[in-house]
């Protein structure tokens, strides 16, 4: 007797789940097939079959390596980063009730940039710390500093955004200072390329870092979807609904820090995903977090795969930093959000 309502409730979940997985798979396939050098769908199929089932198709080893060792991990990391950054945006916008909250506005990317530059140019850590670890440290430090400043300033939503702006300015200035102090043209170009996002160095070990980070973030967000719904009426309303406000804040902020710092340390600063994707998805699936969280994760993943493809083929023989592509789409999106939310900001 209880089976019928349960299955009817599951039907839309299963429908969305299967559709979402199909969309993601097509996007991943596109990410592997489309690139600087042409590779056919048949060859991609053969390489997948060889690697997954030992099929034994004869394929040029360099082409096979490009597909399996370069493009597939790159696409998977793009998907994980897109999902992680979009989820971070969803969480921050829910917690601080501000449509403009996203990891980048809160100084995380600026902090990551400073950390990376400190390691590269100043030689911080004497070579023991890699550029990614430097970025991770910088991102975490910036997040902690901005949160502390916002708290000291009264702890409101506006204070957090203002503290984020102050933090971004400070860390961007430090980055510029380090570059101006000792970088030559080649170094400045290397850093700038990295600061704007770059997936060219992504390999399988990065997949094993990015996908668990995104997966953990997604689980944390799914676990607290009801709490995030409650937070949209304010922290005190959430508390009155029986939600352990402090605990939820700590877990979710922790998840956001982990995801953003990991993604930024792997691929550089890719802006606008956390800002624009949650808003676009609110428009499509509404603002209930039960749907908004998985929809944003999926859309973020697909968006970043698409942006990576565009960055690879926009100028033949040359790679455009992926952050430029996301900003070209994101900035107009940002403008639309500003106009749509003109009464609420």
């Amino acid at each position, binding site marked *: 007797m209880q089976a019928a309502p349960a299955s009817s409730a599951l039907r839309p979940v299963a429908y969305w789940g299967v559709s979402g997985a199909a969309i993601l798979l097509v996007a991943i396939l596109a990410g592997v097939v489309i690139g600087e050098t042409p590779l056919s769908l048949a060859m991609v199929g053969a390489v997948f079959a060889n690697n997954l089932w030992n099929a034994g198709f004869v394929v040029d080893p360099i082409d096979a390596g490009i597909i399996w060792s370069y493009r597939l991990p790159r696409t998977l990391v793009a998907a994980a980063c897109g999902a992680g950054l979009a989820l971070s945006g969803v969480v921050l916008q829910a917690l601080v009730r501000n449509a403009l909250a996203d990891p980048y506005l809160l100084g995380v990317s600026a902090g990551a940039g400073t950390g990376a530059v400190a390691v590269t140019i100043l030689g911080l850590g004497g070579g023991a710390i890699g550029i990614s670890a430097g970025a991770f440290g910088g991102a975490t430090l910036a997040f902690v500093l901005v949160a502390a400043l916002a708290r000291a300033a009264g702890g409101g939503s506006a204070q957090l955004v203002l503290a984020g702006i102050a933090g971004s300015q400070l860390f961007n200035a430090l980055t510029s200072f380090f570059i101006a102090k000792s970088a030559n043209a080649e170094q400045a170009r290397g850093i700038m390329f990295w600061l704007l996002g770059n997936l060219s*160095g992504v390999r399988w070990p990065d997949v094993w870092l990015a996908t668990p980070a995104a997966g953990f973030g997604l689980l944390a967000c799914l676990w607290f979807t009801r709490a995030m719904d409650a937070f949209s009426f304010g922290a005190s309303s959430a508390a009155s609904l029986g939600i352990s406000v402090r605990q939820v804040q700590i877990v979710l902020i922790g998840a956001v820090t982990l995801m953003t710092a990991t993604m930024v340390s792997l691929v550089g600063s890719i802006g606008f995903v956390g800002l624009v994707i949650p808003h676009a998805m609110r428009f499509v699936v509404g603002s209930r977090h039960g749907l908004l969280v998985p929809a944003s994760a999926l859309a973020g993943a697909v968006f970043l795969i698409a942006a990576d493809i565009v960055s690879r083929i926009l100028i033949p023989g040359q790679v455009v930093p992926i952050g430029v592509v996301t900003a070209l789409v994101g900035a107009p999106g940002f403008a639309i959000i500003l106009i749509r939310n003109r009464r609420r900001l």
Partner: protein
Amino acid sequence: MFRRSLAAASCAALSLALPVQADTVYPLTLTNCGVEVTFDAAPESVVTVGQAATEILYSLGLGDKVQGTSVWFTDVLPEFEVLNAGIARMADNDPSFESVVAKRPGLVAVQYEWHVGAQGIVATREQFADLGIPTYTLPADCVGKDNTAGSDGTRLEMYAMDSLYQGIMELAQIFDVSERGEALVADLRAREAAAIEKAQALDLDGASAVFWFSSAEMDIDPYVAGQGGAPAYMMHALGLENVVRSDEEWPVVSWESIARANPTVIVAARMERRRFDADDIDNKLEFLRSDPVVSLMDAVTKDRIVILDAHSMDPSIRNIAALETLAEALAGADLQ
């Protein structure tokens, strides 16, 4: 004025026509990278901005006139170690305008326009001229090159050793040591010709190469030599095709494209600086041998990796030693 130009012109003509130079006639006026520079006498002192300019002056026996050096890419050539130890190194990288001026140099000899040039980060040439300090930029950085385009400038035509030889001859002329300039250029030309002859005897038809300078991160798309710079000239001279098509001096090109092009030879830069992991030649070699795609290239599997001093990939007198090393390596690589 006319007489001065005439004197300069006839001087220039003589420098091309006669094997042995006469004494320089002052005032000497040269057009250097689009700027007219006049010397009433041989400069008593010189400050260098750029290692290539420093080593040319040392090679011309003018070390005693050098008051300060800057912009070092690697250790000085071994034969100048003692000399160089006694000369002030003002900065490893870019010196400040005032620190150069403080030396009261009779000349500032410059390797790159991005240090001293129209938008030079040290200063513009006008700023030095306003203080009565003439500047001389090595023609290798401006002949056939647009320094306003691309981050390292863009070559409009391929670099040729002639622009380096022109720089040596003109510096020698400025300091009234033209015979030394002639002798140095003759020696370099002979070594260049011998290296090219050695490579051409190998009949390298269809062989190709890539010059890897460094990478911002170990796995990331590398900086490689484009179509116009000193490495492009070396490849052209020795009969190797450059698999990189960009006209930029040091473009970023994906390993995917390089692996697909499958160059016959990989030339990797060795340097002392450690700004990027890939600056270390051992890390470069480790990457080439361990990366799942790059390690499949013929040049890696057949161990055709040539290591060259990084500074020899910049327009400099070290280009000759690089040509010799390359020709030697190609001869030993059994390419037939």
